[in-house]
């Protein structure tokens, strides 16, 4: 899952959690999943080191 997809997924979890119709079990598992995803996103962002590569363009395309 890409970083952007993770954030979209997080937003989905939050809106699911804001819906009062789901069961307590579902809300607890959604919360658990959300917190894990959030922490992994935060860690990813805080620890990321930008990668730079140079690709030479072939003379003939």
């Amino acid at each position, binding site marked *: 899952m890409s970083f952007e997809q993770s954030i979209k997924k997080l937003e989905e979890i*939050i809106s699911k959690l804001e819906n009062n119709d789901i069961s307590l079990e579902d809300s607890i598992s959604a919360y658990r999943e959300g917190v894990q995803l959030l922490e992994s996103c935060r860690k990813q962002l805080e620890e990321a080191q930008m990668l730079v590569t140079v690709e030479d363009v072939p003379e003939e395309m």
Partner: protein
Amino acid sequence: MTVTQVNRYIAFKLKEDKKLKGILVSGEISNFRHYETSGHIYFTLKDSESSIRSVMFRSYASQLKFMPENGMSVIVKANVQVYEKDGAYQLYVSDMQPDGIGALHMACEQLKEKLCSEGLFDEEHKKSIPEMPENIGLITSLEAAALQDMLRIISARFPIAKITVFPSLVQGSDAPASLCRAIKFADSKDLDLLICGRGGGSFEDLMAFNDEKLARCIYDCRTPIISAVGHETDTSISDLAADLRAPTPSAAAEKAVPDKNVLLDRFDEMKKLLDNGIISHIENKYHMLDMLSGQIESLSPEGRISASFGKIDIYKKRLNDLYRMNIDKAGAAITEKAAMLDSLSPLKTLSRGYSLVYKDKKLISSAGELSDGDIVRMRFSDGEVYAKVKERI
């Protein structure tokens, strides 16, 4: 026909002719007059063989970035119209550029108009720029400060990004072809976003980005592409053909990726939303439990059970009472009957002097039942005797 009618007719004919509208004319300025009060500019534009009167009204003249003067070579954008009062046609100028580079400007303006009319710059063709591109291609010169600026900004804002640099010439006659090759190559790499550009320079330096082939190549690029050429004020044809224009390479880097600090704030906000979400769920369930336990209590059979136990006790007591009463009653009846029995016992009667007479074990209650000579058994209270009937009397 009057003079006015002739002039008016000619004015009408010229106004009708589309070829005389928005034309670009190069020439040298002479007889330059700038009226301070009105702000209008009057001059004659001439070349080696010919001249034409020209006017530039204040609304356009005030936009000029330079002050024209006699002897200056310029290119003007103008409509040809008739000044009816003098019967003279003249140029009504809306824009003016110094020539030299003016020729380049003219070519550039013409190309811009051509591509614009083809729809290359239409908004509807522009692809949306992804919110968080992770794989970004930079098409620029390796030597330029622009590349270092972009790398520094992207690394600070969104270090998750993986950058691929596709080196290209960004200046000179070979630059457009080099840029096209780099864009096509980068487009084949399935990246999220491309940024194509260079830092500021002279108009001629930036001309590579006003190339028709490059504009079409940018237009055909399937990957979303940001064009960032030169300084704030320069707008290249590449900028117009790209999905997004950034005034400088640094600005392109800022537009391309989200800011880490904003994202971290957003994460804090999301954590709050998650916490609030689960807390409100749990509180809700507690509230529901309270409500339900109230309902259960009100529906509980406990009250009915204890009421039933009370009734059972009452019934039990009544049963007991009834039982006792009946037994007492029965006891009394038995005593009474026993007394009665006692009083009715023939033994008692016998003791008073009566006796019982049996014949063949049958109690005889009438003299008629006996005949002379019958043997009878007589019972007294203290014993029995046999007797013989002598005679019936």
